[in-house]
């Protein structure tokens, strides 16, 4: 049985239907990359999964529990949020807390872990994302890349079963994209189930098990990266991929090439470095 199985997800902002019946099934440990033009409903899709937005119809199996997405109960919401985490485009760190306190917050307040133990856990995850030496900095004193890495540490520290990433590198200066993608790749290597909205094609090629192309509130194309990225069947997918490859000034991830300028330190390997799920 898949870890997540979403069927017929619909969502409207007022009379504007933004998701028009989305199906997606995610296995444990799978990395799903979601692409698509701006406004196609990618963020809304992720945000419906943890009830940050209210969907109108749909059914989701999440870790064995069946949820009516048209009528979430409080305990459904608690269940999903307890085992999922989210990384946002704008980091959304708590501005009045240091990096360390940001990571500790959920541990102490939600998981009820004692402060000194929570501190150790928080330090472990900040170390993992290369942020340990800045753990007492406030977000305002951190670069975008550092803030996003701290936000990833905050998400991972909760020990989630799945992490949703909504364009985690889109707000970053180009030279900071690589450091965040590297951390995400490491998370992927450790077997985390991930749903990632991103336009970083080389990253997708490297870690994705499944690439989903969305447009107009529906899934247009879905499949392994070499199919969707290299041999897209739908004209809309082709057009979109051409467009972003032009925008980024890159070929779609040729071997040995360091992707410029959008992912400086993120070099494409001859072979996938992250084993296929």
């Amino acid at each position, binding site marked *: 049985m898949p870890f997540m199985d979403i069927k017929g997800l619909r969502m409207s902002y007022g009379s504007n239907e933004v998701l028009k019946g989305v199906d997606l099934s995610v296995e444990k440990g799978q990395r799903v990359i979601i692409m698509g033009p701006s406004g196609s409903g990618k963020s809304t899709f992720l945000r419906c999964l943890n009830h940050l937005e209210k969907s109108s119809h749909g059914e989701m199996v999440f870790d064995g529990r069946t949820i009516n997405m048209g009528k979430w109960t409080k305990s459904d919401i608690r269940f999903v*949020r307890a085992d999922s985490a989210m990384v946002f485009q704008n980091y*959304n760190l708590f*501005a009045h807390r240091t990096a360390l306190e940001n990571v500790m*917050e959920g541990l102490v*307040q939600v998981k009820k872990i004692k402060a000194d133990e929570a501190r150790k856990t928080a330090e472990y995850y900040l170390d993992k994302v290369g942020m340990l030496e800045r753990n007492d900095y*406030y977000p*305002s004193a951190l670069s975008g890349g550092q803030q996003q890495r701290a936000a990833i540490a905050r998400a991972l520290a909760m020990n989630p079963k799945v992490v949703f990433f909504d364009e985690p590198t889109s707000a970053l200066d180009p030279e900071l994209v690589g450091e965040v993608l590297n951390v995400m790749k490491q998370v992927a290597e450790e077997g985390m189930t991930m749903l990632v909205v991103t336009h970083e094609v080389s990253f997708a090629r490297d870690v994705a098990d499944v690439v989903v192309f969305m447009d107009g509130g529906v899934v247009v194309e879905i499949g392994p990266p070499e199919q969707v990225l290299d041999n897209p069947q739908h004209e809309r997918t082709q057009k979109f991929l051409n467009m972003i490859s032009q925008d980024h000034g890159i070929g779609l991830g040729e071997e040995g090439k360091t992707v410029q300028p959008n992912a400086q330190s993120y070099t494409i390997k001859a072979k996938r470095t992250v084993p296929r799920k």
Partner: protein
Amino acid sequence: MDILDLQFMIDCVPQIFIQGVPIALKIGLVSFFFGLLIGLVNALFKIYKVPVMSQLATVYISFFRGTPLMVQILIFYYGIPIILRAVNAKYGTGIDVSGVPAIDYMYIVYSLNIGSYLSESTRSAILSVPHGQVEAGYTLGMSTPKILRRIIIPQALTVALPNYGNTFIGLLKDTSLAFIASVPEIIGQAKIIAGRTSMFFESYIVAALIYWLLCIILEQVLRILEKRARRHERRA
């Protein structure tokens, strides 16, 4: 003849200061505390658009901001006893109306008055906290009250602090109106001395200087508090 009798002024400082200032501070602090609670509750009613309550909040805020404090004091000072007597008559409750000290009425009217001002500043301060942080709290599994307490209110307080400080300073000066309900605060004391000695000018100047001193001290305290509260905004 001198315009001001300096020795007299020095002599009346102790009475005005020792007897008047504690009363002024008591009215100010108690009303500010309850005003903050009223302000927070109203702000939440309005932000979460709680039916009925948010409309009531709007009317309440509009009334207390739209009428003079002096009038509010008079209404409460003369009105509450009338209402209490009516309650006594109707329900046989034995409330000792004449035994209620005047300052208790002042706590009520000043709390309501200041609460109406703090409602708006609290509301805008809460709305200034980026919603993304609230969402981050939700995805961590935090409940709405916990997010309010841990994420929103601490940051909103920082934003509102200058506003709160100015409101408190204004409130402290406005406690001077309590003399019309015979509360012997700073102005009340000055009036007593002036009535006894006919040294009106001197008494009121001493009162003014005391208010001025209090405000200067408060402004300094406020500056320190603001600096501390904003430490997370400083770039390291």
